[in-house]
């Protein structure tokens, strides 16, 4: 017979890693399913967390499920560790899990990111968690979730190709800037989250596991290691990343990486590395510190 003691537990102000065990169990099952079907959106309950929806709650739930006390966690927003929301999330993760915080890509075991993949190559012992505002790549052509699910089931992506073609005809190029629709493992088209086109090739045949999670839309999906990620492109119009290969960072002097444009009073612009962790390391190295910088996906602006 079930007793009251079995139904309850001693009072604690908060579970380890904030989420209670039923939420974590559900997430782990859904994560395994997502890894088993690369690029396929898996619905999950998506519990409320102490942060507003749209502010990284999907990424947060996945990271909270994966964290352990020995984890080393890095959180970036737009490539920057010092963004206020990144700082807020990183502190929360460390507080509820006991994990160590870092801004060094090479040192981290889990990297939660909004809108960027770090420039340094990630290893097979690292996990990238991308925050996703809109998981459905078909949303621009099909508003209904129910209909879009059917289209995914049928691998019916004709209308996505069509809008890319229309952009070509109208403007002479594909205008899709970020969240570039990409075919995963030759089967499901996914939105790689609003990372720039610069970052999408980093997911292709990567050594690391990428988990993408949309808390508000309650969907998660995955790109397992060594999985093909191919941006939709025409055979005569190759996929094209941002024209940043020739830009130089005004702070660190590094060039050939994705840059932020900083408008200047004189009407011109300066550029600085979007990957602030890499920028910091380059600055410290320039100041004479012995800071190791990992190999980067792009070298001299070429992948």
């Amino acid at each position, binding site marked *: 017979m079930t007793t009251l003691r079995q139904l309850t537990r001693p009072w604690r102000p908060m579970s380890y890693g904030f989420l209670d065990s039923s939420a974590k169990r559900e997430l782990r099952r859904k994560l395994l399913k997502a890894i088993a079907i690369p690029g396929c959106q898996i619905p999950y*309950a998506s519990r409320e*967390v102490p942060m507003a929806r749209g502010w990284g709650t999907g990424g947060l739930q996945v990271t909270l499920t994966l964290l352990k006390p020995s984890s080393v966690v890095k959180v970036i927003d737009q490539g920057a560790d010092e963004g206020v929301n990144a*700082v807020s999330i990183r502190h929360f993760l460390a507080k509820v899990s006991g994990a160590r915080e870092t801004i060094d890509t090479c040192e981290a075991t889990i990297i939660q990111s909004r809108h960027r993949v770090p420039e340094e190559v990630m290893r097979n012992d690292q996990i990238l968690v991308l925050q996703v505002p809109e998981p459905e790549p078909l949303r621009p052509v099909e508003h209904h979730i129910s209909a879009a699910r059917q289209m995914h089931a049928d691998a019916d992506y004709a209308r996505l190709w069509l809008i890319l073609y229309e952009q070509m005809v109208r403007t002479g190029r594909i205008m899709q800037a970020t969240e570039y629709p990409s075919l995963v493992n030759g089967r499901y088209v996914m939105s790689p989250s609003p990372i720039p086109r610069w970052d999408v090739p980093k997911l292709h045949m990567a050594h690391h596991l990428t988990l993408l999670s949309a808390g508000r839309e309650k969907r998660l999906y995955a790109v397992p290691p060594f999985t093909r990620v191919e941006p939709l492109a025409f055979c005569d119009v190759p996929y094209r990343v941002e024209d940043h290969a020739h830009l130089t960072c005004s702070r660190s002097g590094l060039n050939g990486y994705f840059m932020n444009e900083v408008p200047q009073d004189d009407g011109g612009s300066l550029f600085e590395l*979007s990957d602030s962790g890499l920028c910091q390391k380059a600055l410290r190295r320039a100041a004479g510190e012995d800071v190791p910088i990992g190999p980067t996906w792009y070298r001299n602006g070429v992948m």
Partner: protein
Amino acid sequence: MAYVAARGGERAIEQSQRLYRERLGTIDAARVDEIGRALPWLVDRIMGEASLYAPELAALALTQSGGDLYEAVLLLRAWRTTQPRLAVAEPLIQDKLFIHRRISAAFKDIPGGQILGPTLDYSHRILRTDILEGAAFDPEPVERSAEPAPPHQPSLASWQKAQGLVVDFAREDIPKDDIPDLTREPLLFPASRAHRLQSLARADTGGVMALGYAVMRGYGPAHPTVNELRLGEADVEIAHPRGTVFSAGRVRVSQAEVASKAAIENIDLGFCATLGWNEVKIIAGGTLDLNAQHATKGSPFEEEFFLSHTEPVEGSGFCLHFKLPHYVTFQSMLDAMRDARRKQAAKASKAVVKEPAE
């Protein structure tokens, strides 16, 4: 030196919260208690949207957020989600509700009678400025009725079913633990009946009203008549592991049944219920429920549309998230736009050359 920027973010966060809280001053149990007693209708609205019946915690959330309703709902939901689900209560039976207010617009009088209960519906909305000048506004005591209304009332729909006016659907006997729970499963479409009603129960009052009102104004096919509206208290009946069913306490609930005016063979009913007393929400929600089956694909009165867009925590959070930096996406867009402009300019200059001279 290298970490200064990261610490700067931390300090900015801390100080911004201090600035916000400076305006609220000291928050103590006395203030929470006063807010709970002074604003019972707001507390009810928040409990409904948070899907957590806890008046004291709702008053605390309201106090802590300084009255920002979406913030208060998020506080409660984030607390709620960490709590274990110990038991599933017995279903509420209409006849067992303790009724405070019960009205029907469909008939002049109904079995069990119309009970006006607590309402300001027929009050004159005059601002009592004399209170600001020192006058106290002590409500006059309620005079007891010579014939008190019975505490329990049959539902009007049961009379209508007996008359054959409303289809009496066969009751599905689903084990309590198998009832889908929206707080533990994602909402998928088409949604189960349980998910639709749960979703409406915790929907944003303002959002449900806006869409429900649009239906009422003629954008939806079915116009509502309030078949029955109830404000009551329900016993939360729990089965003890030994099998005894006991009441763990009472919660305020609202229910509305909305009938279609366009009945041909049978009267269609829409239904909405929520925790706490919140009449606007259940009338609008019932109207949306009533219209959903006739809604054309893509219209705002389709279930997928109104359930997706009246979720208070998701909607408010997403609106606010646009304050977050988006400079990477913006940079990427600029790159494509500048290149397209170069291409257009090149094309235009070529076109000029090709033009035959006059």
